[in-house]
C-alpha cells in the first residue's frame, strides 16, 4: 500500500503543497524543451529537404558557438563576430552541399546518414584544431543578451526565479519558429524546398536547382545551430560535451515527427517538461538520474501508438 501511495499519491501531494516549486519545475522544463526544440528544428529542416537524418546537427551547434566565441577571442567585436559566424555557417553549408551532398545524389538514405556521421567527426577534429579543446564562455553580455534573474515571491513565501537569458531563449526560439514557418509556406524558395522534399526528380524536372536548395537549407540549419549554441552556451559553456546533449533531440523528433516544425516545438516542450517533472517527483523512487532515459521512454511509448509522431506525415508506400 505504501508503494502505491509513494507512486500515485505522494508526488501530487508534493505538487499541491509547494505550487511555487512546481511552477519552477515547469518553467525549467519549458526552457529545456525550447532548447531541445531548437536542436530538433535543425534536424527537421535537413530531413524535410533531403530525407537525411543529419547526425551532424549536434556538432554544428558546437561549431557555430565556437566560431562566434573564438572570433571574439581573436579580437573581433561581438556583433561583427556574430555576422562572421553566420558567414562561417554559410561557407560550411556550401561546402557540405558541394563536397558531400552533390556527389551522393541518388544514393540510399543510409549512405547519406553515414556521410553525416563522417561529417560529425570531421567537424569535431576541425573545431578542436582551430579553437582548441577547452570549453569557452559564451559572450552573452557582449551580444546584448540579458543576464541576471527576476524572482517572484509567491503567496506561500516560495520563490519562482526566472533567468533573463531563459526568457530571451524562449522569445528567440518562437521568432525562429515563426520565421521558418513563413519561409517554408510563403516564399518561393520555401515552396521549392517542399517540392524537393516530396520528390527530388520531379523537382528537378520543373527547373528547381537541387544544389541551391540544399545549400540554403543547410545554411538555415546552421543559423538554427548558431542560435542554439548561443542559448545553450549561455546556460553552461560552449564545449564539445554539447554535441552529446544534442542527441536529446531524438526523442523530440520521434514525438513531434521528423518533418514538422510545430511538431519539433510541441515535442520539445512535452519532453522538456515531462522529463523534469518525472525526475523531480518520481526520480527519487529509483535513486534519481532517470532524466537521461525517461525522454526516450516517453518517445518509445508514443512510437507504439503513433509511429509517424504527432505531426509527422503518414507515408503509405505501395508494394
Amino acid at each position, binding site marked *: 500500500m505504501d508503494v502505491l501511495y509513494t507512486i500515485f499519491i505522494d508526488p501530487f501531494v508534493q505538487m499541491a503543497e509547494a505550487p511555487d516549486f512546481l511552477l519552477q519545475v515547469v518553467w525549467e522544463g519549458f*526552457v529545456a524543451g525550447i532548447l531541445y526544440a531548437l536542436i530538433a528544428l535543425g534536424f527537421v529542416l535537413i530531413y524535410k529537404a533531403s530525407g537525411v537524418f543529419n547526425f551532424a546537427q549536434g556538432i554544428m551547434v558546437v561549431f557555430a558557438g565556437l566560431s562566434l566565441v573564438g572570433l571574439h577571442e581573436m579580437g573581433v567585436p561581438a556583433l561583427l563576430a556574430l555576422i562572421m559566424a553566420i558567414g562561417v555557417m554559410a561557407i560550411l553549408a556550401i561546402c557540405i552541399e558541394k563536397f558531400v551532398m552533390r556527389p551522393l545524389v541518388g544514393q540510399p538514405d543510409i549512405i547519406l546518414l553515414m556521410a553525416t556521421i563522417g561529417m560529425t567527426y570531421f567537424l569535431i577534429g576541425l573545431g*578542436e584544431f582551430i579553437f582548441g579543446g577547452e570549453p569557452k564562455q559564451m559572450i552573452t553580455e557582449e551580444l546584448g543578451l540579458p543576464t541576471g534573474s527576476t524572482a517572484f515571491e509567491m503567496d506561500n513565501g516560495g520563490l519562482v526565479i526566472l533567468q533573463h537569458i531563459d526568457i530571451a531563449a524562449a522569445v528567440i526560439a518562437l521568432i525562429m519558429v515563426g520565421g521558418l514557418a513563413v519561409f517554408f509556406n510563403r516564399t518561393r524558395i520555401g515552396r521549392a524546398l517542399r517540392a524537393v522534399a516530396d520528390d527530388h526528380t520531379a523537382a528537378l524536372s520543373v527547373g528547381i536547382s537541387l544544389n541551391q536548395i540544399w545549400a540554403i537549407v543547410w545554411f538555415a540549419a546552421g543559423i538554427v545551430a548558431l542560435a542554439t549554441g548561443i542559448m545553450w552556451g549561455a546556460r553552461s559553456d560552449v564545449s564539445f560535451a554539447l554535441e552529446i546533449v544534442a542527441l536529446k533531440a531524438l526523442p523530440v523528433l520521434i514525438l513531434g515527427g521528423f518533418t514538422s516544425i510545430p511538431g519539433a516545438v510541441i515535442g520539445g516542450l512535452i519532453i522538456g517538461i515531462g522529463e523534469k517533472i518525472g525526475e523531480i517527483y518520481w526520480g527519487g523512487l529509483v535513486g534519481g538520474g532517470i532524466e537521461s532515459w525517461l525522454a526516450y521512454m516517453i518517445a518509445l511509448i508514443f512510437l507504439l501508438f503513433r509511429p509517424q509522431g504527432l505531426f509527422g506525415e503518414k507515408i503509405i508506400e505501395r508494394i
Partner: protein
Amino acid sequence: MNMNSMLAGTLLAGLAASFAAPALAADSVYIQLPTYRTGPYAGSGIAIANGMSDYLKMINARDGGVNGVKIEFDECETGYDTQKGVECYEQAKAKNTLVFNPWSTGITLQVIPKSSVDKIPVLSMAYGLSAAADGTTFPWVFNPPDTYWDALSGIIKYIGEQEGGMENLDGKTIGYIFLDAGYGREPIPLLEDLASEYGFEVKQYPVAGKEMQNQSSQWLSVRRDRPDYMIMWGWGAMNPTAIKEAVKNRFDMSKFIGVWWAGGDDDARAGGAGAKGYKAISFNNVGADYPALQDIKKLVIDADNSETPESQLGENLYNKGVANAVYMVEAIRTAQEETGKTVINAEDMRVGLENLELDEARLEEIGLKGMISPMKITCKNHSGHNPIFVQEWDGEKYTPASDWFEPMTEKVTPILMEASKEYATSNAPWPEREEPCPE
C-alpha cells in the same frame, strides 16, 4: 621469393618496427603521458597535461634530466575514454614506459590487474581505486598524496569544524552531486559509513556523462531538498555547469565544496561573481611564484616550447599536473639512489615510488616549498594520506580557507584495508606480493 612477398615482408617488418620500443639514447628514460586535450573532459585535461609536460621539459632543459638522464616523453590522447586509455597502456608497455599515469579512474580500474603482470607501476595521483593505497595487496599501484576517501573524509571533517564539532553533524543533510561513473561512485561507500556514524543524511544527485551540461533537474532537486552542504565529485564540463546552476538556484556557495578535481579556475570563473565563496579540498596551492614554476616560465614557456598560455601557469589544475610530474621525477631520482643505476627500468621505478619522500628541505631544494605538502610513500602505504586543506574562490583566484590538516586516516584506513581484501578476493587468484614489506 617473388616481388610481392618481398614487398609484404618489408611492409610487415616496417610495421613491426613501428610498434617496437623506441630507440632511446643510452642516457635517457621514457615515460608516456596519457592525456586528454580533446572531448568533453578537455576543459580539465588540458591544464593538467600542460603542467606535467612543462615540468618534465624544464627538468630536461635546466638539469639535463635526472642525474644526467634525460626524460623522453610523449602524450597519448585518451579523450577520457576507458577503451582508448587501455590502448595507450598497451602502447606505453611496448615502449617500455617507466610508469603509467591513467588520469581516469575508469582507466585505472582496467589497468590495475594488468600492471602486476606487466610489472609497470601505475601512478594514479589522488584518484583511482582508494583501496590501492594498501601496498601489500597492490604492489604496483600508487595513489599519493591522498585517496578519494581521504578527500571525502577531509571535507566531512571540515564541515564538522564549520558546525562547531563533528557531533553537530547529527541531523544535518549533505548533498552529494557526482559524475555517474567509476570516479564519482568511488567515495560513496565511505560517505554512507560516515553518515551512519555521525548521524547526517546523504542525498545523492548523479549526473550522467552525457547530461553534464544539462543539470537543471539535479539542482531543482537540491533546491527542494535544501541540504545544509553540497559536495561535488565532478570533472570536465560538469563542474562549470554545476557551479552556474548552484549560483542560479541561489545555493549558499560557502557551503558548496568540491573534490580537488572540481577545483579548476575555469570551473569557478564560469559562475561569475556569484561563485565567490565556492570551495574545493586540495593537496596543492595555486600561484606561479614558486622558483620551479618561474624556471618553467623562463625555460619552457618563454622559450616557446610549451602549449601553455601564460595565464594558465600557476592555476589550480596546472599546478596539479606539475605535482604529478614532480612525483615521477623524484621517484626516478630515488630509484637511482636505491638501485645504484642511472638508467632505470619500470621495476626500478616501483622501488623509487615505494621509497619516495619529499620533506620540507627537499621541497625547498626543488623550488616547490609551500605548493605541495611534505609527503612520504612506504612499501605498505602507497598513498601516504598526507595533509590537505580547503581552498576558496575569491572571485578571481583560489585562496586558502583553512590550514593544512590531516584527513580522517583513523576512520579511512580500516575501511580501506577491508576494501583491499575484498578486491583481492573478488579478483581471485589475485597475485601475492613477491617480496614482503619490511616490518
